[in-house]
């Protein structure tokens, strides 16, 4: 590359990187400052370091409960998505018939249709199942929401596995279930990682369904808790920023270590199979 064009590339990218990092920087540094200092010097490192905001959010704000709820919902949903998705994908990839093609198209159609449009019915369903105000109202919805993308990615992956692997096992008389659990599932690991990351970020960050299903304090997730606390602390910037920092931290830290996998996972929906 010529020197002038290289300089231009660095200049533009550095400006945008600054635009991205500046809000995140002010978020974190200011959460450690008293309100007055946030207004008098919003960009520098804290002169009067304080963790009062974090204390308030954690102690008065039940943030620990929100965190655990979000963790349970995310982990249980992911396990179910991977299990149900990989089972269905294995069958859809190996079973050649009109029924399997139709079922595959039926699942994949969900990629283009946001599940939120069915919310009114889901509210009625959760009322009927008496799951409102519990984290159990969220899990089946997230599992259903995760099916199209998971089946899309995993079916393509199974189809690309070498045939011999299944044939050899079949000659040995292994039942389909054993082939799936002992041969296919371990081979699927890279695709499962992609599916898991894609769904993890969607589920962890989801605000819509907790907002619609959950009113009770003990079942709140982080997103819901943040909206509540932020409303309360709107004029107390130290606390407001501490709330947002606590919510952003877990994902940002994971992202720093796993950025390659995150980028691959989040853009997976766009890759044609």
């Amino acid at each position: 590359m010529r020197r002038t064009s290289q300089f231009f590339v660095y200049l533009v990218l550095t400006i945008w990187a600054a635009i991205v990092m500046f809000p995140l920087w002010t978020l974190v540094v200011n959460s450690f400052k008293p309100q007055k200092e946030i207004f008098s010097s919003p960009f520098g490192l804290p002169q009067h370091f304080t963790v009062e905001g974090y204390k308030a959010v954690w102690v008065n704000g039940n943030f620990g409960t929100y965190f655990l709820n979000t963790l349970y919902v995310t982990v249980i949903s992911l396990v179910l998505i991977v299990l149900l998705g990989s089972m269905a994908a294995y069958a859809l990839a190996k079973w050649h018939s009109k029924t399997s093609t139709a079922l595959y198209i039926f699942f994949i159609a969900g990629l283009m249709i946001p599940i939120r449009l069915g919310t009114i019915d889901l509210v009625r369903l959760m009322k009927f199942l008496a799951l409102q105000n519990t984290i159990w109202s969220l899990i089946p919805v997230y599992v259903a929401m995760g099916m199209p993308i998971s089946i899309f990615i995993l079916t393509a992956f199974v189809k690309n596995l070498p045939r011999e692997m299944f044939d050899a096992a079949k000659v040995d008389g292994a039942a389909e279930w054993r082939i799936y659990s002992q041969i296919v599932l371990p081979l699927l690991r890279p695709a499962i990682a992609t599916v898991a990351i894609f769904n993890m970020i969607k589920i962890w960050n989801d605000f819509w369904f907790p907002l619609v299903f959950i009113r009770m304090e003990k079942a709140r997730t982080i997103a819901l808790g943040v909206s509540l606390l932020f409303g309360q602390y709107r004029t107390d910037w130290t606390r407001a920023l501490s709330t947002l920092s606590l919510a952003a931290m877990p994902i940002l830290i994971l992202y720093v270590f796993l950025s390659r996998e995150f980028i691959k996972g989040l853009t997976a929906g766009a890759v044609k199979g």
Partner: protein
Amino acid sequence: MLAERIKRQRRERITWLLFILPALVVYVVFMAGPLFDSMRLSFYTGKGFTPTEFVGFRNYIDLFTNPFWRERFLGAVKHTTIFFIIHMTVQNSLGLFFATLLSANFKGRNFYRTVIFAPATLSVLVTGFLWTLILNPHWGAINLTLKAIGLASWAKPWLGDEKLALVTISLTSVWQWVGMPTVLFLAGLLGISEEIIEAARVDGASAWSVFWKIKFPLLKPVVGVVAILTFVDNFNAFDVIYAMAGVKGEPNYSTDLLATFFYRTGIAGEHPVGIPNMGMGATIATLTFVILMTGVLIWLYTSRERDAE
């Protein structure tokens, strides 16, 4: 022999169906079913959770003719379209631009890619709240900076002005999501073989014409994917408006999108009544569905045409 083969085929069929069944049940009960039943509900009315009275197309007729509904609905469609167009143009051209820069081989490429993508991993609610603080007219960093460098007249009530709010919110959303098209275009650009480009260069083509005459046409499939993703995601946006303008799309409904309109009408209930009108909510959802499907079908049709070329 034949009887045995049929029997074996049937047994195989049952095995496969059992593999698919758990996924299918969850998908039908919690996604496909509710989506279709919402369409049925759009033909009913009744307060609260049991819209029982069948009214045919009255919800639809009301939505288009009753002045109250009509104003809100057309407003929501208009704002959602503007929100989408800003993403389509600003976000995706920025993404293409960044991807072009990143496709050159230089030190620190991964660092920049990681930074540009980072906001996309964060909760929309968190970034939305964060930007309301930064855009705060009195204490926010943007206006403080503008005042400090002598541009006090540029310091605007970004989220309080009806003319500015929707554009401001759209741009913060672009800030968050620009990493997606960047990464997708980058993957497309890196997939183009060096030889083609080298050959064009040898023929004396400038960097500019190499990009528009060779690279961009080869990127068309990626452009299609980015376009449809932008369309589906943004016609469905809710969190960013909730965080930055509230469920009523303040100020004065100027940032009200289809999703916030749907939420207020069908789920939360419009102030001051506070009782959801589920039939009308379902009508809004169904119309959103129709808009989305129209877009998707146009996309499928044109991309098939393209493939056929």
